[in-house]
């Protein structure tokens, strides 16, 4: 099992990410300048994004039993790198405003993205664990990054302890499954699971514990309690990063793991996932109803969105992977946009997360308000936005698999969801209460927001090209 030259080409995107992280470290060692480290990181990401096209012809390729690089993995790696680029643009503006040094943020971000990439392309328990921990440990640092402020510290500690606990649950589950099957490769597990004779008393609890680990990372219903505190505490760009890259990578892994092993078709697991989906949809929407903190509202709404995503995941027809893929893209664009606005509007001291900061925003800064309204409508699933097409495909996937109860709950809860999105929109369009001008927005942040809004409207009106791309995502 030696690593051939094609393997390296196939692994190119991951290698470039790692190289960039080291390059940024060297950069920081040479001269500590915010702009320099940001641009090195950005360049690295661009090259890694480019390298995906170089690696593409090599697909699909099992590189060592740990990683499998197929069209599915490369699509999500591309998604992760693009959102990391957007993160850099937002983070640069955000951290420029606060005084202390912030070059290490980009190193942590690159490591986290690398972890995500490993997660996405893993086909083995070990690589799953490695990717997950790379991502998590990097996130501990990012969340608690602004040391002087109390809230990030509190968020960091909470995230660290709970992530570690859930990692332990995950590991124990993996151990049980490994104990039952004697193999840690997804395809071999799949083979053994399809034969009825496996040892139920080990495998099912193992799967349950694995679901607990995944559930924490994806902030699904019973394991979602930490989300609002960490999202509110962490600096806005980091929250954006956590909500998108960490959850996105995890869900891609969940999809690959369960679709390959067919685990979720087992009757008990199907019920577990349905219960989690329903609980997430209800909890996410209900908890956000009368919230006054915009970041907490967006945190709860992301819980609800993951609940919607599970509905498509449960459908597991031929339409499901496409629906999940498209919805993840729309979720990425919208969440990055929404938190981007929060990041753009916060000044050095405190994030602009209270609803009053947004009262009468439209009359002070119409363009920013318009972008934020577009993002909110996309979250609510209103036409002309990518969120609408995403939700449309979710319901289509659910309907095609005949999961009527889940679909109806999705409809009802997203009806409840409308209320709190509209609360923010109402605040934005109410009369201007104070004349505070708000911070000036840097060029990179403006570029990021324009890119996101363009993507939101373009994919909302012409989803066809992206759909064709996703349709080709066959598992390796």
């Amino acid at each position, binding site marked *: 099992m030696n690593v051939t030259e094609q393997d390296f080409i196939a692994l190119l995107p991951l290698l470039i990410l790692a190289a960039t992280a080291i390059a940024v470290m060297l950069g920081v060692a040479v001269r500590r300048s915010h702009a320099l480290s940001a641009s090195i990181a950005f360049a690295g990401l661009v090259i890694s994004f480019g390298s995906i096209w170089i690696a593409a012809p090599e697909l699909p390729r099992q590189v060592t039993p740990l990683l499998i690089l197929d069209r599915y993995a490369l699509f999500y790696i591309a998604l992760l790198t693009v959102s990391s680029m957007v993160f850099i643009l937002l983070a640069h503006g955000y951290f420029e405003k606060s005084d202390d040094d912030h070059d290490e943020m980009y190193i942590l971000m690159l490591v986290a993205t690398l972890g995500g990439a490993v997660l996405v392309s893993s086909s083995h328990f070990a690589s799953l664990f490695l990717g997950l921990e790379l991502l998590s440990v990097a996130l501990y640092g990012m969340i608690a990054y602004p040391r002087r402020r109390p809230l990030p510290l509190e968020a960091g500690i909470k995230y660290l302890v709970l992530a570690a606990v859930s990692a332990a649950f995950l590991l124990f589950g993996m151990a049980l499954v490994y104990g039952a099957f004697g193999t840690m490769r997804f395809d071999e597990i799949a083979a053994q699971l399809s034969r009825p004779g496996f040892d139920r008393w080990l495998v099912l609890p193992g799967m349950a514990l694995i679901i607990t680990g995944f559930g924490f990372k994806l902030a699904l219903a019973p394991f979602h309690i930490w989300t609002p505190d960490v999202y509110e505490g962490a600096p806005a760009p980091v929250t954006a990063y956590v909500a998108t890259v960490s959850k996105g990578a995890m869900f891609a892994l969940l999809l690959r793991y369960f679709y390959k092993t067919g685990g979720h078709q087992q009757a008990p697991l199907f019920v577990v996932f349905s219960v989690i989906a329903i609980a997430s949809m209800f909890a996410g929407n209900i908890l956000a109803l009368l919230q006054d903190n915009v970041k907490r509202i967006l945190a709860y709404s992301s819980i609800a969105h993951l609940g919607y995503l599970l509905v498509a995941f449960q459908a597991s027809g031929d339409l499901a992977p496409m629906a999940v893929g498209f919805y993840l893209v729309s979720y990425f664009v919208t969440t990055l946009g929404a938190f981007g606005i929060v990041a753009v509007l916060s000044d050095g001291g405190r994030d602009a997360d209270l609803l009053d900061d947004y009262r009468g925003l439209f*009359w002070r800064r119409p363009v920013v308000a318009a972008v934020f309204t577009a993002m909110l*409508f996309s979250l*609510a*699933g*209103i*036409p*002309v936005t990518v969120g*609408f097409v995403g939700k*449309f495909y979710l*319901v*289509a996937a659910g*309907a*095609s698999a005949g999961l009527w109860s889940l*679909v*109806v709950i999705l*409809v*009802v809860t*997203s*009806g409840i969801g*409308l*209320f709190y999105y*509209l*609360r923010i*929109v*109402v605040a934005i*369009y*109410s009369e201007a209460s104070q004349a505070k001008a708000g911070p000036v927005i840097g060029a990179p942040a403006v570029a990021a927001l324009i890119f996101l809004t363009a993507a939101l409207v373009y994919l909302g009106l012409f*989803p*066809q090209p992206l*759909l*064709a791309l996703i*349709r080709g995502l066959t598992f390796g």
Partner: protein
Amino acid sequence: MILLCLIVIPLIAGGLAWAVARWSVAACRWITLLAVTADLILALVLWGSHSPAGSGTWLAEADWEWIPQAGIRFHLAVDGLSLLLLMLTFFLGVLSVLASWREITEAVGFFHFNLLWILAGIAGVFLAVDLFLFYFAWELMLVPMYFLIAIWGHENRVYAAVKFFIFTQLSGLLMLVAILALVFTHHSATGAYSFEYGDLLGTAMSSVAEMWMMLGFFVAFAVKLPAIVLHTWLPDAHTEAPTAGSVILAGLLLKTGAYGMLRFVLPLFPHASATFAPVAMILGVAGILYGALLAFGQTDLKRLVAYTSVSHLGFVLLGIFVWNPLALQGAVMTMICHGISTGALFILVGALQDRIHTREMDRMGGIWSTAPRLSGAALFFALASLGLPGLGDFVGEFLVLLGAYQQSIVIAALAAIGVLFATFYALQFVQRAFQGPNTFNWRIPDLVPREGLVMAVMIIALLWLGLYPRPVLNTFEPVMTRIEQMAPGR
């Protein structure tokens, strides 16, 4: 091509109006007026050019690829029914722009942007023949109307706007589920994904599935056409909306619900609709009586007019589900005439509120002495809404009652009593607002020439529809026969 212009002109004009508003408010208003008038002329040209016999089902079509993979096409088409409603849309659009010429002072550009985009959304709803595009336009017309109410509304506007948004959006989602269920049933039957109205027409499905899908569609349209239980958003939305908003809300948005039933519920699910018809008829009659009773009890002028809409649309619902030629023609006639008469009433109430800054009838009285022309017009349209023969509403209501009588005597009798109830609220409205002693000795200016012109146009329209409704009836004739033949057992 003309169909695409009908939608694109308001969209572009909206952006233009918003941009121009920064420099000159008048220019912004003129752009909006010109855009809507252009659309009205286009619609009239379309009406003039088509021969009433009409060859195929559609008078004009425009069809492009959109999402071929899912069988979704950008397919616009117009037939007798949608043409009539399009003309009503742009007719009321022009009048609402004229009526709110002086009323809107802050953020005029954004106001006209929203106004034009609502009209584009409504035009899209009437033109869309692809179910996905229909749903797209259905949701699209909702957002600008929400902004119209939330920003330029009156005291309790936020509550009303949010309530309106959630009611319509939630029911819209139910319709989305029904659309998808229909598409997948069609797919499992024919193996191809298609959202085309033509393809989906004959899909075979089990009666239980058909009933559920029909209910999905029916609930969405019943919320929009306020059927009795789902109507509670209407009074709030109408009371709080600015004049132009109320006119478009009452005149057009309610009609999209009725249009949806005629276009989608009856043809797509004939058997389920037939079994559901008695329930729908009872809902209709209950709506007539309940709306009239509540209208009679209101003290806020706009709420009174809003509840009258519930009552009139009860006739439309009844007419649609009676499903014979008389009732269908009556339903369409009522839709159009109700749009004009209630639109006019809202313009008048808006004008009155601009002058005396209140809508409470207890604070009014004796306004006829200071503003005779305004009160005269209000009397005229109150009479139109109580179904005075010689005006449009009577023709519609009489046809619906005549058709309903052939279906069941009890329902026709109850609906006739509803017409009697209409007299209560109409005369209540005139008596308490305009007649009686001028206790608060109002000294208000009468209608300005602009408002006078709007009123005159609407009076002539109602008189013309009342005395010579045949052009409207003939335009709807071919569509009506097609819908009527779809009824099972005919």
